[in-house]
């Protein structure tokens, strides 16, 4: 059974079904959305149980698409994409539950969410360059309408900037894909990975184009400027998907395309890419420290966390020792999942806070922990995870990345300073919002209701589980990373 195809297109089919329904009330729309995303999540668990293989892609589904130019419909999975697929289906399921309170044009909202889920799953599963690009771009369109339609005060400008910026960012990738195609005569990504078709100057040009695209998406300094605006204005579920899923397109592409398809050029440019990672990690942390808007603060910490991923991938490319390479890539990939869980939880919590207070400014709060203990403790746990506390999700990932960095490019370890900064900024935020003098304005603030707990608790459990015993996840990632040839 073509389970991957079914999983990818089930959401959009659900969206089409919703458009065809005679009764399109908010209730029906959200019910359908939860049912479809829940089913997709279960399907991805079945896909997980079917397993992956070392040294290549598993569960391949292939059929002709545009034979004239060697583009085909090809899906498959390995240890890099499978964890991301699981993360995607989980976050969309939780977002669907969270979004059930949205009543403004609910059917359109649900259709967009489902379209985004199809695009995101497709991006991670595609094994055809053109197909990848199609899914990659469709996600932009979906996110544009999501921000423009359901965002906050300044949504039109933020949405426009997001769309123009990321389209400009993604078009160089199209050129790189065309270059890879002209070098190989096919769009099959497996061929591109097994026998990198470009070399010399062509490979360096293709790598530059890809790095530009993925750096915008990651986002890495200095092409990160679209992120704070988009995040702050996006509706809560949009922020969760943007941070939890769509930022991963950048880092996923960095490994899948840049590292695997132009390995030699990547190794040559290793120092530059490493420097970009280090600067992003430090810059993201310091910029976050300067924010008083909580959502903007968390958005900037994403730049910091993704910086560690870039460092990990660059170190893997530069290292000669296969063991170190594997550790670096294991850590970088695990970091993607940890970031999805932890930042997903943080954006959900900030959304819940904003639903209650209609402000995101740290200074407006104070002493909330006694008022809303569920919200408070959940935020504190997620914040600790985000700053890399041992026993929580980010620690095993960042530990591996720094281990490999120390071994290969010791100077880059200065990025570890960023952890101190993030620790400071999270403690400051916790102190300002949840501790300290009680602000009388919020005495009536209700704590999390059942639906909100349902959204947040799975993420917290996974945050602890990945922190305490990451073995099951690392094994999955390791299957592929240990056998990666580049």
């Amino acid at each position, binding site marked *: 059974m073509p389970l991957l195809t079914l999983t990818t297109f089930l959401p959009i089919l659900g969206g089409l079904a919703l458009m065809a329904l005679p009764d399109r009330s908010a209730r029906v729309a959200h019910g359908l959305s939860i049912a479809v995303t829940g089913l997709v999540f279960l399907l991805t668990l079945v896909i997980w149980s079917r397993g992956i293989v070392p040294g290549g892609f598993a569960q391949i589904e292939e059929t002709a*698409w*545009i*034979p004239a*130019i060697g583009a085909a419909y090809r899906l498959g999975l390995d240890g890099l994409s499978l964890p991301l697929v699981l993360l995607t289906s989980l976050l969309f399921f939780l977002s669907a539950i969270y979004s059930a309170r949205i009543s403004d044009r609910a059917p359109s909202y649900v259709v967009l969410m489902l379209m985004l889920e199809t695009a995101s799953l497709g991006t991670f599963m595609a094994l055809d360059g053109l197909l990848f690009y199609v899914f990659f771009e469709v996600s932009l369109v979906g996110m544009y309408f999501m921000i423009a339609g359901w965002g906050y005060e300044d949504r*039109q400008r933020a949405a426009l900037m997001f769309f123009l910026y990321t389209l400009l960012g993604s078009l160089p990738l199209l050129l790189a894909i065309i270059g890879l195609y002209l070098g190989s005569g096919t769009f099959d990504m497996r061929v591109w990975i097994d026998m990198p078709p470009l070399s010399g100057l062509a490979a360096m040009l293709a790598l530059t184009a890809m790095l530009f695209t993925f750096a915008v998406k990651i986002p890495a300094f200095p092409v990160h400027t679209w992120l704070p605006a988009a995040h702050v204005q996006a509706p809560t579920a949009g922020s969760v998907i943007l941070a939890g899923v769509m930022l991963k397109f950048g880092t996923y592409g960095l490994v899948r395309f840049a590292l695997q398809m132009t390995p030699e050029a990547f190794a040559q440019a290793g120092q530059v890419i490493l420097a970009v990672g280090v600067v992003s990690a430090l810059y993201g942390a310091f910029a976050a420290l300067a924010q008083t808007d909580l959502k903007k603060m968390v958005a900037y910490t994403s730049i910091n966390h993704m910086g560690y991923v870039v460092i990990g991938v660059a170190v893997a490319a530069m290292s000669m020792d296969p063991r170190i390479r594997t550790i670096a890539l294991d850590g970088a990939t695990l970091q993607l999942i940890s970031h999805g869980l932890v930042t997903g939880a943080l954006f959900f919590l900030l959304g819940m806070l904003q639903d209650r207070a209609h402000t995101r400014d740290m200074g407006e709060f104070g002493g909330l922990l006694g008022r809303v203990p569920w919200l408070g403790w959940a935020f504190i746990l997620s914040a600790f995870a985000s700053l890399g506390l041992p026993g929580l999700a980010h620690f095993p990932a960042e530990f591996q990345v720094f281990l490999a960095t120390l071994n290969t490019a010791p100077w880059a370890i200065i990025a570890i300073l960023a952890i101190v900064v993030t620790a400071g900024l999270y403690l400051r935020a916790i102190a300002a919002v949840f501790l300290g003098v009680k602000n009388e304005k919020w005495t009536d603030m209700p704590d999390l209701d059942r639906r909100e707990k349902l959204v947040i608790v799975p993420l917290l459990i996974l945050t602890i589980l990945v922190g305490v015993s990451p073995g099951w996840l690392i094994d999955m990632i390791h299957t592929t990373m240990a056998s990666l040839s580049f």
Partner: protein
Amino acid sequence: MGRDLSFLLPELLLASVAFLMIVAEMARAARLVLVIGLAGLAAATLLTLPVLHADTTVFSGTYRIDLISGWAKLILLPGTALALLMVRAEIAGQDREGSVYALICLVTLGALMLAGGGDMMLLVLGVVLTGLGSFALVAFPRDDAATEAAMKYLVFGAVTGSVMIYGLTFWFGGAGSTLFSALAVLADKPLISIAGLVAVIIGLGYKAALVPFHFWAPDAYDGAPVSVAAYLSVITKLAAILAFAQVLRDMPDDSNWRLVIALIAAVTMTYGYLTALVQTNLVRLIAYSSIAQSGYFLLGIVALGASSLAVPGLIVLGAAYVAMNLGAFAVIMIAGRTLDDMRGFGRLRPITGVAMVIFLLSLTGIPPLFGFVGKVYLFTAAVESGYLWLAVIGILNSVLALGVYLRIVVPMYRPAPDGETGPEKSLHPALAVVIGVAAIVTLGMGLLAGFLPG
């Protein structure tokens, strides 16, 4: 003779249908004219299918039956049928309604000649036939704007047409034949080949609205009825582009014509979108954006003979362009001629609104829509023939394009001025058909692009 005629059945049928339409118009039976036209176009499309995969010439090499002319018929004939429906929705019941239908079919006949012509005389004939009909179509409303636009169009056409004929005499003199296939002998006569080339670029560049021969286009589109503007912006433009392909296929490489075309392409794309960015009149906005679209077609012309994807790319983007541009114009006919008219449109008419978003995103080149497939073909062809810089400019312009088309999309989802909502009002049935067909083609052919030529 019999063989030659059998290959020309679609053209012959269209010619006879056009005359039948004129006869019916004499009886003032506009509805009948429309029915004859639609039936004739459908029949001609069906007659094209058996000869689609032929690759030959008829009448001593003057008329080409090949991939380009075959697909031109398959695209232009149904496109013309959609345009007739749009005209019906706009001017039904007006005086001279039937004449418009008949003129449109005659112009399409000229367009087919341009796309299939393998000879300089046919090229001239095609330019004249499409031109004369178009001038009259633009002047249809008989008001000041339309008259001025038609005059501008006519004067421009007369001058560029004469220059083209003058330049073609150089080619005839140098090659000793009016056949394009004889142009290869000009390989060692660069001056002669450049003289003719410049002339053809002027003549066809005017028809395709390339910069700097585009000045007539925004005025003509704005002065003409919207449906006629839609027709002119797709059918005659695509015909001119395909005629370019027929002429330049046989050009020897040494006259640097690729570089010349590439420069025109870069200027046309950039100028078209930059100018579209500041328009507030929707018809003019789309007019300037169609100028930019012509620039994208030139990527395929640049790659002719150097990349196997050039001709398929022209055909794919051509088919996509006909569907998405006609669709966008059809929505403008419902909404109104200015950007302000789009305000709240997506909320008032959700289904038509989604169709408009599909057309505009496809014009931008966003996957998986049809326009994206066409652009991928043409970008690949340009890179393969060594014009990476042109592909880069094309790609940068796609961002400008997004800026242009989002200027329409953004107000569509603002609250309507009078806050009116509710179930979608019914459309004119002819427009509903046009928008439906265009949307299905734009979305469906993007997904099923495998059926396209290659």
